[in-house]
């Protein structure tokens, strides 16, 4: 456990030193400025999308960037010969990714409250954001581990977004009929988007929320156990 805490502390320090956390904060400030110019109703509509983008798409992007950079630096190989397990290294990176998503959710929620006096159940939002961030970190690892470099990882991310994220955005814009939402829930992006949106808007369907959470949790477990963990060590050794 001690090793895991040290790994997490190292990840957080590097988030700052590699300017990932400051850039993420600056992006969130842009969201705040955007919310400032919107009406309360418009802000409640758009805020879940902003939180979702940070928790899902940005999580994959930043994880891919840091994975390929660390591979180039050889630091993953160096960590593999420390008295920690590959699982602990992966867990620390996932926690770092979750911290970025939670930071965005906290700042956006604070902006909604202080600018538009919009309040909701923050605890539920944070649980949903954490579930979205962990599952998308797993997806980010899968895409990174199967890509030769960051450029091919970006191409893979675009492919993922085309299949899983764009239909969800089209649904939120009303371009896809609501009767197809159960089908859309198979998309990790839509499951995450639905959970975050329901928390911010305070419109829960207990069944959908439970299924969404269970689905993202199960997806995370399966991806980490069956794909990410076995490939991570082999990928690090290959250098």
């Amino acid at each position, binding site marked *: 456990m001690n*090793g895991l805490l*040290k790994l997490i502390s*190292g990840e957080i*320090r*590097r988030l700052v*030193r*590699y300017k990932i956390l400051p850039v993420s904060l600056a992006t969130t400030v842009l969201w705040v400025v955007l919310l400032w110019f919107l009406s309360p109703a418009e802000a409640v509509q758009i805020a879940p999308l902003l939180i979702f983008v940070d928790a899902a798409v940005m999580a994959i992007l930043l994880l891919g960037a840091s994975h390929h950079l*660390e591979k180039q*630096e*050889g*630091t993953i*190989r*160096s960590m*593999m*010969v*420390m*008295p*920690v*397990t590959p699982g602990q290294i992966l867990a620390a990176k996932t926690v770092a990714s979750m911290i970025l998503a939670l930071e965005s959710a906290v700042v956006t929620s604070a902006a909604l409250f202080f600018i538009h006096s919009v309040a909701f159940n923050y605890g539920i939002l944070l649980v949903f954001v954490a579930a979205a961030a962990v599952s998308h970190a797993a997806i980010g690892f899968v895409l990174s581990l199967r890509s030769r470099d960051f450029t091919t990882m970006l191409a893979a991310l675009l492919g993922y977004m085309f299949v899983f994220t764009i239909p969800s955005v089209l649904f939120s814009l009303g371009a896809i009929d609501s009767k197809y939402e159960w089908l859309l829930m198979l998309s990790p992006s839509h499951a995450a988007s639905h959970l975050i949106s329901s928390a911010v808007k305070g419109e829960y369907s207990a069944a959908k929320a439970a299924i969404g959470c269970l689905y993202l949790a199960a997806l995370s477990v399966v991806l980490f156990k069956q794909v990410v963990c076995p490939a991570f*060590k*082999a990928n*690090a*050794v290959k*250098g």
Partner: protein
Amino acid sequence: MGVAFQVKDLRFRYPSSGADTIKGISFEVREGEIFGLLGPSGAGKSTTQKILVKLLDDYQGSVAYLGRDLRSLGTEYYEEIGVGFEMPVHFSKLTALENMRFFAGFYKQTADIEGLMQRVGLWEYRNMKVGEYSKGMKVRLNFVRAMLNKPRVLFLDEVTNGLDPKNARIIKDMIAEYRAQGGTVFLTTHLMNDVEQLCDRVAFCVDGRLVEISSPRDLKLKYGRREVKVEYRDNGSLAAASFPLDGIGFNEEFQRLLQTKEVETIHSGETSMEEIFIIVTGVEVR
């Protein structure tokens, strides 16, 4: 002297490869010795080292570390070994000292970071980001990284590659001191100078097989020419003659040459490790 590693009939095949990279090698590394694994690129040296540092698991045969099956050892094994990679392995946007403190934080016992960095000449650059380091500085920092946990066994891959002679000397002195204090070193390199100066025993790996294991001295005796070569001045011009080493003290021609000519150099026909490498592996040294 005990045995640090006992390797028996080791075989390994990468999943993407159609043939074994390691084809049934057996050797032992004794405690307190510097063991060199030599061979041309692609011979299987790095794969063997990756197996010994537990980066590759799916091998056949057996590897025992101090009598214990390597497969049965967990992360505690990394408390006992230090690994020096050939390529840089540091966070480029952190300073050298931040890197060392980060890695040192995971071990139960740690070496004196300042002392190690002083010794390799990096202490005054400790607050510089590693990304701004030269190649030689990164190589020296790799060595410090390997020594951070006061390891019982040190794995070094091309440890002086890219270093100037002065810094290479410092690193080699540190390795010799480490051995003198009881440490065991597993060295993979293609720099024959390092081998001659450091290794107690060497193994030559060719195409996944070990073709020779011996001490550098015995290899020189085995592959060397038993002769003495003399260069001398003869009527102002340079001349050379060779004499069999056996019975040299009674060789009259040799005695006469020493007494009558102006001798410039005398060498026994020692074969260099570089020549032995070429003879044994059939490959030119890079």
